[in-house]
C-alpha cells in the first residue's frame, strides 16, 4: 500500500505533487470505503446466506434456494427489505441512545478491518500495535450492545445487554492471554509481523508450534466465539430465553445493522484466528509478480478465514447454549487458568527447547493434528454406517 501511494505521488505519477501524507490518508480512506462496501457488506450478507444453507443441510433441509440462483440473492432481499421497513422507536425508549447503539456496534466491527492483512500488500493500515488495536476496538461492541439493551426499555433487552457486557468483558481476558504466546514467539504486535513469522506449510504455523500454542488456539477460538455472541455463547440474544435479547425492540434498518455486525464479526473472528495461528496469507513462493501474488495471498487468506467461519456455523448447529453462571465459571475457572499456563509454558518452551528439537515437535504436532482429523472422519463414517446399516431404504412417501 505504501509503495503504491509512493508510486502514485512520485515523479510522473497520477497524483504527482500531492503531499505524501494527504495522499496516504486519501488512499486509506478510499481503500477503507472499498473494503466496507465491496467486501464487508457482501461478505456479511453472503455469510448469512451460507449459514442458512449450512444449517439447513445439517438439519436435513435444503435451505433458501428460491431467491436467485440457489437462493444466493437471499441476503440482498433480506437487506433491502429491512432497509425499507418501518423503523419503530418505542415511545418508552431513550431515543438518542436507541438510535446510536447499532452504529457503535457496526463501527466496532468494521474498524477491525483496518488492520486485517488480506495479503502482504492489501492492508488498510499495518499498525505496529495491530493485535492490540483489534482487542481494543471490539470493546466498542460492548458499549453498543449495552446501550441497545438499556435504551430499549425492555426487560428482555436489558437482560441481554447485561449478559453481553459481562460476557464480552470476561472473555477478553482469555482471548488476550492466548494472544500473548504468539506475541512472545514473534516479538511483535503487528499483524503483518505475526504472519511473516510463520510459513506457508502447516508445520510452520503457530497452531502446531508447540503444545501450548495448540491449546492457546482453542482457547482463543472459543473466547472469540463468546465475544462474537455465537452459540454456544449466544446468551445475549438467546432466542428461547430472551426473545431476541438486546435487539428485541429493534426493527428495520437498525436491526439490519446488528444483523450485519453479527455475520461480519464472524468473518473477523476467522481472519484473526488465521492471522495468529494459521499462517495468514503465507503461500509457497511461486511467482514474483506482485499482482498475482496479492490475488493468491488474498485467496489463501480468505479461504483459511472462511474455513473458521464455517466451523463456527457448524458449531452453532451442533451445540446447545450454556447458562450464564456456567459461562462465567467456564471463563474464570477453566479458560483463564489454562491460558495463563499456556503463556508461562510458551515462555519456558522458548527458553528450554533447543532449535533442532523445535522442528521435530512441530512435525509431530502436525501429524497429531492430522490424526485428530482422521479420527474425526472415522466417527463420521461410523454414524453414517449406523444410519445406513439399518436404513432399509424403504421410504414410504414416493417423492422422497
Amino acid at each position, binding site marked *: 500500500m505504501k509503495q503504491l501511494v509512493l508510486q502514485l505521488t512520485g515523479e510522473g505519477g497520477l497524483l504527482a505533487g500531492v503531499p505524501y501524507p494527504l495522499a496516504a490518508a486519501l488512499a486509506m480512506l478510499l481503500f477503507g470505503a472499498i473494503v466496507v462496501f465491496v467486501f464487508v457488506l457482501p461478505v456479511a450478507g453472503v455469510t448469512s446466506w451460507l449459514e442458512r444453507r449450512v444449517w*439447513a*443441510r*445439517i*438439519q*436435513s*433441509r*435444503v435451505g433458501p434456494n428460491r431467491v436467485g440462483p440457489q437462493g444466493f440473492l437471499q441476503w440482498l432481499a433480506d437487506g433491502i427489505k429491512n432497509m425499507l421497513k418501518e423503523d419503530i422507536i418505542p415511545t418508552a425508549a431513550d431515543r438518542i441512545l436507541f438510535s446510536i447503539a447499532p452504529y457503535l456496534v457496526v463501527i466496532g466491527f468494521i474498524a477491525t478491518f483496518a488492520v486485517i492483512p488480506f495479503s502482504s500488500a492489501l492492508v488498510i493500515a499495518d499498525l505496529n500495535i495491530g493485535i492490540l488495536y483489534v482487542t481494543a476496538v471490539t470493546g466498542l461492541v460492548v458499549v453498543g450492545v449495552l446501550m441497545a439493551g438499556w435504551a430499549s426499555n425492555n426487560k428482555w433487552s436489558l437482560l441481554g445487554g447485561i449478559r453481553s457486557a459481562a460476557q464480552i468483558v470476561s472473555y477478553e481476558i482469555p482471548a488476550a492471554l492466548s494472544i500473548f504466546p504468539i506475541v512472545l514467539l514473534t516479538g511483535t504486535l503487528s499483524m503483518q509481523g505475526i504472519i511473516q513469522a510463520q510459513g506457508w506449510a502447516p508445520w510452520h504455523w503457530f497452531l502446531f508450534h508447540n503444545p501450548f500454542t495448540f491449546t492457546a488456539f482453542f482457547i482463543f477460538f472459543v473466547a472469540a466465539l463468546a465475544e462474537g455472541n455465537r452459540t454456544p455463547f449466544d446468551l445475549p440474544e438467546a432466542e428461547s430465553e430472551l426473545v431476541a435479547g438486546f435487539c428485541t425492540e429493534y426493527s428495520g434498518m437498525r436491526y439490519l445493522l446488528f444483523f450485519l455486525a453479527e455475520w461480519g464479526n464472524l468473518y473477523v473472528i476467522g481472519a484473526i484466528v488465521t492471522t495468529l495461528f494459521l499462517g495468514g496469507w503465507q503461500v509457497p513462493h511461486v511467482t514474483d509478480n506482485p499482482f498475482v501474488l496479492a490475488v493468491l495471498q488474498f485467496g489463501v487468506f480468505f479461504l483459511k478465514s472462511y474455513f473458521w467461519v464455517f466451523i463456527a456455523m*457448524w*458449531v452453532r*448447529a*451442533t*451445540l446447545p447454549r450454556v447458562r450464564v453462571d456456567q459461562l462465567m465459571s467456564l471463563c474464570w475457572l*477453566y479458560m483463564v487458568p489454562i491460558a495463563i499456563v499456556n503463556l508461562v509454558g510458551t515462555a519456558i518452551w522458548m527458553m528450554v527447547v533447543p532449535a533442532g528439537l523445535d522442528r521435530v515437535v512441530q512435525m509431530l504436532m502436525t501429524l497429531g493434528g492430522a490424526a485428530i482429523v482422521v479420527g*474425526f472422519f472415522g*466417527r*463420521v*463414517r*461410523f*454414524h*453414517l454406517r449406523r*444410519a445406513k446399516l439399518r436404513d432399509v431404504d424403504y421410504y414410504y*412417501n*414416493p*417423492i*422422497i
Partner: protein
Amino acid sequence: MGYFRNIKETVATIFEGMSVTFSHFMRRPYTVQYPDRVPIRIQDTLPFRYRGILEVDLEICTGCLACERACPIDCIVIDAVKDKDTRQMVLKRFDIDIAKCMYCGLCSEPCPTGSIHHTSEFEGADYSLESMLRRFVKTPVVAYKPKKGPETDPEVAPILDRGMAYLTDFAAGGEE
C-alpha cells in the same frame, strides 16, 4: 480430578456431536420441494384415506341428509325438497363451508352411496372467507334414487362405482 475429567468429557462429547452433524453433509436432505420441484403432484402421493377438502358427487347424492345430521358443527347445509308434481327429491342447495370444516370424516361415513367424500386436495387458500364456501348445486338437481339392481345409466355408473369403492374402504367399519 474432576477438573480434568470435565475437560475431557466436554471435548469428547463435543467431538462426537460434531461428527454426527458433519455426517449430515453426506446425507440427502429430506425436503419435498413443493409446489414446483416435485416429480408428481403431492396430492397423488397421499393415501386413499387422506381427509382433504370435501367434495360431493351430486349425480349420486340421494338427499338423505345423513351427512348434515352427522356433522357435529353444522358446516354442511342441504336444501332438499320434494317436488309435488314429479314426487322426486330435488336438491336446491348443497353448501359446505370448508373454512369451518374440521375434516373429521364423520359426514362421509353414513353416506349410503359415497357421494360426499374427502378428496386428497388440500390447496384451498384464498383471500376471503366467502370464496371458501363450496356451493355444489348450481341449478336445482334431482336427487339420485338407488336402484334395486345394478346401475344402468352409463353416466352415473362409474361415479357410483367410485363412490361405493370409497365407502368400502373409508367407511367399512361405520356404525349401523
